[in-house]
Structures are given as structure tokens and as C-alpha cells.
């Protein structure tokens, strides 16, 4: 009994002896983490947070005075509201199409064996290295009323009139999906690649047919990749300029185009930055709604 007590006491004593060095190690580790974290933090603060704060500040300045004129202008002219809606609508459509078209591609890529997986992956990535302008103008030629796609459709004699594929939202969406697809496929691919396939075997061994094994095991576990890709595509789509300008043929106006127009039209930066602020807030709003619908933690890829 006394033996036991003394040995327990010895362990307690050893604990007390270790407290200080352990705390020291913990503190050092925390400092190290802060040290490792600080370059990224400083970078973000200097190049993201500060400029956005500056943008916000400028949107309330007119003639070097506080003013809400740049916001009241957006209420006075309904065009701002319509342009914002168009931008959000196009971005959502592009995101949905990217998800539908990109998911099977990412799935296939993750299934392929080395020579083919590398070939197919480079096919996905190659467009990255081609100039955006070149790709956009290539679509203009492909989609035009006497372009190859319409010639093919006419040859099939499906319609007697050429399809209106360009100089409208259709053309804009086609061009944007082409640009954005890799941004969807790559994050999803990396998640699917690390998927543990024995889970599917486990599901099958428990009697799940392939479809429910996919729907109830694979799909939920691939959601973080899907959401990461979708957020990436959506947010980037909001800022598109060249593609809607060229393939929209002037019939599609997105926020960035109006911002550019305002930079030239008004001497005050606020005229442009105010619309930027509104876009930023609307984007957060849409993401918040999406987060609520999907469950917040999934939106930001935090679940496994």
C-alpha cells in the first residue's frame, strides 16, 4: 500500500518536474507557428485586406469629401442592379455547367492508370498555357453564324436557320465554361485521387448496389473537392471581362465591364469602387446562402 502510494507520488512528482519544460516547448512551438504563419498573414494583410479597405474607403469619397453619391447613383440607374443580376446569373450557370461537365472528367482522371492519366491531365491543363484572348477569339470564329459548328448543324439539317451561339449569353457561357473547367476539375481530382476505394468495397460487401454505393459513400466524400472547385469557379466568374466583352458582342454587360466604363467616365475612383464593393458583398451573400444550404463546414472543405 505504502509502496503503491510512494510510486504514485513519484509519478506525480515527475509530472511536476516536467510541467515547466513542457510549457516552454509548447510556447516555443506556438511562437514557431506564428513565425511560420506571419509571412502569409503579412502578405494577405498588405495585398488583400488593405486594398479592399482602401476600395471601401474610396467608394465613400467624392471631391475629397465624404459622400454617398456613388451608391445613390446605383439606385438612380437600374442598370447597376440589372448588371449585377446578369453577373450573378451567368456565374451561377457557369458554375453549374462546370460541375456537371467536370465531375465525370475528374472521376475518370482519378481512375486512369499512369500513362493515360498523365496524358488526360495534361489535356485538361494545356488550355492554361494558351492566351485567354486567343481562346476567346477562337470561340468567336467557331460559334459564328457561318462558322464550323453552324455549318455542321446545317449539314445535319436539324434547323433551317443558323443557331444563335454567339453575341449573346449563350456564347459568353460557352467561352467562360471553357476557361473555368480546369479550375473545377483540378481541386476535385486531388480529392478523388486520395479517396479510399476500400470504402466502396465495404459498401458492396454490405450489399449496396453500385448506384447507392456511389451516391451514399463516394459522392458525399468527394463533396469537399466539388465545393472547392465550385467556389473557385463562381468567384472567378464574377470578375470576367474579356470573354463577355468579345463573345457577348455588346449584348452582355458584366460588373467588371461597367466598372471599366466608370473608370473612364468619372474622375472619381469611387464611382468604380462602389460597384466593386457591392459585387464583393453580393458574392459573400451568395456564398453564405450556398453554405447554409450545404452545411457551412462542407462549403469550406473542412469535413473529411
Amino acid at each position: 500500500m505504502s509502496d503503491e502510494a510512494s510510486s504514485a507520488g513519484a509519478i506525480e512528482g515527475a509530472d511536476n518536474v516536467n510541467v515547466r519544460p513542457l510549457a516552454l516547448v509548447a510556447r516555443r512551438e506556438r511562437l514557431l507557428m506564428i513565425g511560420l504563419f506571419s509571412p502569409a498573414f503579412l502578405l494577405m494583410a498588405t495585398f488583400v485586406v488593405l486594398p479592399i479597405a482602401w476600395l471601401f474607403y474610396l467608394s465613400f469619397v467624392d471631391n475629397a469629401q465624404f459622400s454617398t453619391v456613388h451608391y445613390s447613383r446605383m439606385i438612380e440607374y437600374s442598370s447597376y442592379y440589372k448588371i449585377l443580376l446578369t453577373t450573378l446569373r451567368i456565374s451561377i450557370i457557369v458554375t453549374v455547367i462546370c460541375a456537371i461537365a467536370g465531375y465525370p472528367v475528374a472521376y475518370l482522371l482519378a481512375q486512369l492508370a499512369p500513362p493515360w492519366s498523365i496524358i488526360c491531365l495534361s489535356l485538361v491543363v494545356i488550355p492554361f498555357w494558351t492566351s485567354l484572348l486567343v481562346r476567346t477569339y477562337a470561340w468567336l470564329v467557331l460559334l459564328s453564324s457561318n462558322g464550323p459548328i453552324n455549318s455542321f448543324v446545317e449539314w445535319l439539317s436539324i434547323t433551317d436557320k443558323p443557331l444563335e451561339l454567339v453575341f449573346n449569353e449563350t456564347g459568353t457561357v460557352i467561352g467562360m465554361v471553357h476557361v473555368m473547367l480546369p479550375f473545377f476539375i483540378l481541386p476535385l481530382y486531388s480529392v478523388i485521387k486520395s479517396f479510399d476505394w476500400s470504402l466502396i468495397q465495404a459498401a458492396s460487401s454490405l450489399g449496396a448496389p453500385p448506384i447507392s454505393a456511389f451516391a451514399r459513400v463516394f459522392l458525399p466524400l468527394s463533396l469537399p473537392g466539388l465545393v472547392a472547385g465550385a467556389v473557385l469557379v463562381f468567384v472567378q466568374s464574377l470578375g470576367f471581362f474579356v470573354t463577355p466583352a468579345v463573345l457577348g458582342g455588346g449584348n452582355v454587360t458584366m460588373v467588371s465591364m461597367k466598372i471599366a466604363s466608370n473608370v473612364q467616365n468619372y474622375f472619381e475612383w469611387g464611382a468604380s469602387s462602389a460597384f466593386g464593393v457591392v459585387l464583393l458583398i453580393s458574392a459573400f451573400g451568395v456564398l453564405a446562402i450556398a453554405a447554409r444550404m450545404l452545411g457551412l463546414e462542407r462549403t469550406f472543405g473542412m469535413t473529411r
Partner: protein
Amino acid sequence: MRPAAFLAAAVSLTIATSAVAAEKLSYVTSGGVYLENIKKAFLEPIGKKLDIEWTIETADNDTQVRVQVASGNVTYDIVEFGASQCALGASQGLYEKLDYSIINNTDLAPGSFSDYYVGSTVFSIVIAWNTKTAGANPPQSWADFWNTEKFPGTRSLRKTARGMLEAALMADGVPPEKVYPIDLDRAIASLRKIKPKIKAWWLSGAESQQFVKEGGIDMIGAFNARMDSVASDGAPITYTFNQGILDFGCWAIVKGSKKGDLSMRVLAEFVKAEYQAEMSRLSNYGAANTKILDTGKISPELAKRLPTAPDNLKRQIFANPEWWVQNGAKAIERFDQFMAE
């Protein structure tokens, strides 16, 4: 994706004109075939004469100038834009005051220069058409262009308030001499009538050329020399100067340029008839200098085809930079509003 990448398309090129101690000077203008002609007519000979090494950048608008002047970090020296942009920039303090004891303005067309800018080329937004698809019955006025029943075919206009408001008023029956001051409501109402028939709106001159070459556009309101250029490439395009909307390019020196004195001497060369005549010869654009025909560089045939030829001048109207400086912001906001409808 970024506006700067598209609109400014800032491609820096440097032409070394002399190996020893040539002074560097930056020149900013729109790109494409226009820039090529500017190089041949102005930059190369004048660079040689004044021993200048040019740094050329391209921009379709003055956004960069605004950024530089606002930040105090000015790297541009001489810029060339459209007249309304120069006039607006001048009213907002973007440019240095010009010294007309150095720059000789006696031969320049009245109205083509001010305290802050001086005219370069003269161009016109004209009614052009595809001779294969619309050649049998071509539109001869903006009213014809607006009349889609009598003049069937796909159409394109410029996606800017400037020029299009004027065209819309003439289409609605306003006599050319009564276009200014522009009745915004009437102009927008007129544009609303043609909008459903406009297949595509062009933004850059290059785009207008692309539209008539490959975009399946039968009729277009576009810059005369741009249409000459596609026609000389073999595209079946021609145009009329009837109710053309004349405008001019202009040179200005950016406020705070570190080469103000040299820039002033360069502008003094730019306005001379010999260089401006060469530009007209190369590009089919008119010139601010009224004495270009005296240089002997312009053939009689070309003289007749310039927008500034007397027969053509009387069929066109001059855009009014004054009106645009005073009403531009509101007019452009209304036009953007109309485009988003």
C-alpha cells in the same frame, strides 16, 4: 479577364533609333494597323531627327493616365486619344498646357487644337455594308440603317454613347445641323428601336473589322479607314460618307511628364504637314493640318477618299467635344443603362 489586360493591352515595344545617348520618350496610342502607320509616318522619322528612342505602349482609353497622374508616378510622356477623351482629360487636369510659341498651329483646322491638346488624324464613323449581301440596296443614311424592312440584313454599331447618340438622332429625322445639343431622351428612344436588330456591338476598331470579315454582319457603323483596311484585304465592304460622324485624334502631354520640353518639341514636329500627309497616305485618315495636299504626297484619287475632302466634309457632321465634356458622364450613364435593358 482583367480590364487592364484587355483594354490597355499594354505591350511595350522599343524601337532603337540610335545607339548613342538617344533620349527615351514614351508614346501611347491605340494598337493594330493604326500604330504601324503612326510608327512609319511620325515616330521613325522624327525619332531619327530629334535622336529619340521611343517606348511605345498601346491603350484604347486614358485609364492609365488617370492612374499615373493620381499616384504621381508618371511614366507616360505623349499620349494620343480621341478628341473627347483629350478634352475631358484636359478639363480634369490630366495634361500639360501646350506652348504655341513652340508648336506652330497656323495651318491646323480650327477646333482641332486647344490649350491642352493638338489634333492628329481625322476619322469618321460611317455607314458601311457588305457588297455581296447588302450591295443591291445599300443604306444611304442612318434612317435607312434603322429601317430594317426596306434594308434587311444583320447590323452592328459601336458600343459607345459617343457617335451612336448622334446617329440615332439623325435616324429619327433630326437634321444634321440640329444634332447638338443632343436630346438624350429622343436619342435613347431611337436607339431602343434598332437595338433588337443589332446582332453585335463592337468595342475596338479591330473588332469592327473582325465582325464584317467573319462575324456575318451585313451593315455596320464603323471608322472609315478600318473599313478601307478590310476592303484592301479583299473583304467585300464599302461605305458612304453620308451622315458620317467626324471626330479627330489628339496628342497631349501627360501632366508631370519628366520630358515635358522634349515632348513639346516633338509635338511641334507632329503637327507639320509633311508627317501628317504621310500618315494620310498610309492610312486613309484625314489630318488636322489643312496643308497636307500641298506636300504632293497625296494622290488626287486618295484626296477624294479622305474624310476631310471638301465633297465628303459637307455630307458629314463634326462631333462636338464641348458638348461631350459637359454632358458626357450623364450621356454615358444613360447609354449604359440602355444597354443593360
